[in-house]
């Protein structure tokens, strides 16, 4: 499988000269399976770039049946949706999956961005592709040669974490997670089971351990949490994800350097998730 980062920034896009290295687009990633299936994960502004790339690949002229997996519906994970070019292609079919919210359906939450007050598109009907919406809970299923496993994670709204397995190798995309308070240890034990043995763990590391007390309850983890959970789960590589909008490229590199100091022998290799980077398993 091939995994690509199209957006690595949390909360809100951060354009500007000081985010050129690690990126300013909000979360979006892409998985390509051996079987040729295309899966986009999350629809932050990074999805606008993913869409452009798909058009350039020729999908503006040919049909495509692909999948969009949403971890949750916070703005930074859906705000790119109305600007995703493939949704305007009449010979495209997109199956959209996400968690079930108690008050509104997944379709309603995405359609809520397209009402006249918010968008000149005015409704989902302006999108020409054939769309299907599927609310999912925890489970395991196949898309082509990929096995997908998802579990709920602790965040400030209902949120899923997806694990991708193919040919005995696994990658986990674990964003928007906070291990908080008395529940923290129990949550870590649960996530260890989900992350266990995956070669690659991509994990929310928005805050440093020193920053965290000011942001308790915001729904995000620390870099220290990431390292601890990746160590416990036996991951070979850890990518820090969901970068704080207040951290520029230099500040992110300091964050990584500080984390490196806490690294023990046999700990995972540490990386900052970078827009445009590709992981091949």
């Amino acid at each position, binding site marked *: 499988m091939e995994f690509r980062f199209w957006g690595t920034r949390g*909360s809100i896009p951060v*354009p500007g000269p000081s985010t050129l290295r690690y*990126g300013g687009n909000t979360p979006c990633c892409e998985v390509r399976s051996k079987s040729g299936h295309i899966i986009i994960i999350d629809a932050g502004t990074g999805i606008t770039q993913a869409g452009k790339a798909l058009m350039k690949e020729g999908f503006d002229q040919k049909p495509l049946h692909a999948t969009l997996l949403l971890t949750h519906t916070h703005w930074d994970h859906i705000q790119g949706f109305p600007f995703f070019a493939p949704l305007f292609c009449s010979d495209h079919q997109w199956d959209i999956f996400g968690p079930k919210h108690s008050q509104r359906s997944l379709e309603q939450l995405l359609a809520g961005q397209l009402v006249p007050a918010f968008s000149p598109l*005015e409704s989902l009907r302006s999108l020409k592709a054939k769309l299907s919406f599927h609310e999912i809970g925890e489970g395991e299923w196949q898309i082509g040669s990929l096995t997908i496993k998802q579990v709920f994670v602790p965040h400030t709204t*209902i949120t899923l974490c997806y694990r991708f397995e193919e040919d005995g190798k696994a990658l986990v995309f674990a964003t928007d997670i906070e291990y908080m308070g008395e529940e923290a240890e129990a949550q870590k034990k649960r996530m260890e089971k989900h992350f266990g043995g995956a070669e690659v763990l991509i994990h929310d590391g928005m805050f440093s351990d020193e920053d965290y007390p000011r942001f308790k309850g915001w729904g995000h983890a620390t870099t220290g949490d990431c390292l601890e959970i990746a160590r416990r789960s036996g991951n070979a590589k850890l990518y820090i994800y969901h970068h704080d*909008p207040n951290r520029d490229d230099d500040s992110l590199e300091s964050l990584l350097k500080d984390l490196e100091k806490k690294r023990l022998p046999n700990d995972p290799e540490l990386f900052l998730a970078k827009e445009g980077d590709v992981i091949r398993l």
Partner: protein
Amino acid sequence: MKITFWGTRGTYPVPGAETHRYGGNTPCIELRTHDGTLLILDAGTGIRPLGRTLFKEAFAKGQGEAFLLLSHTHWDHVQGFPFFGPAFIKGNRFHIFAPRQEIGLREIFLELTYEPYFPVPLDGMGGSFDFHEVQVGDAFSCGSAKVSCVTMHHPWRVVGYRIEDQGVVIAYLPNTAIHAKDETELSASLVKAAKGADLLICDSTLTAGEAAQGWCGHASAEQALSLAQRAKAKRLALFHYAPERTDEEIDSLQAALRKKARGVQIDAAFEGWTFQVERGS
């Protein structure tokens, strides 16, 4: 009046190497009137860095007050609001103006901060907000400045703002075609809105070729110049760049327009641009 541009990009934020000079943040402009009153024009992602600078002032202590004038509530003009730091500090007061939509203005802000989308509800944000629905023809004061709501030609409900203070006039027309939907002549209402403006900030989303293809609610820079000339505006700021417009393309556009400007000073607005708007500047 002192003006600072914090976001100049239209439609959606565009981080990256090709947009960092003119900017990738969606619209937000800071205006300081003669008596020091703060006006904020639109709440695109540019409002987040503006918010950070305001913490050096009364806003940090909950003693701040500002007038937030929204041209409309399409995403690129409101998406920054939940990330505007001063709105979270108790005591800060915000007077929010926008044209009425199919739902009420307060309902729009409740939707912006609704739990599946954003973790802090409007009523939990700390600041106090009063909402004013306006329409073309309305006028009100913001400190020493007088603001009139003027026509723009765009899908759904929009207003431009004509702001006058100590004889200095700024016309803010960020999202408008140059003529009404079923007409071909330069709109007399727009000419009136921009008449004699010391600074006209105008929609420049389209290329000349795109503008020739028919009405879509936006203008080209060439059309913005025609408006500036007909209205005898002293100065034109190109604004609301299309997401795909690169810094180099904007350089060329500015250069080409300056060659044929005749009587109008033309600048392509860029993030960080700050100056005193003078009479007859």
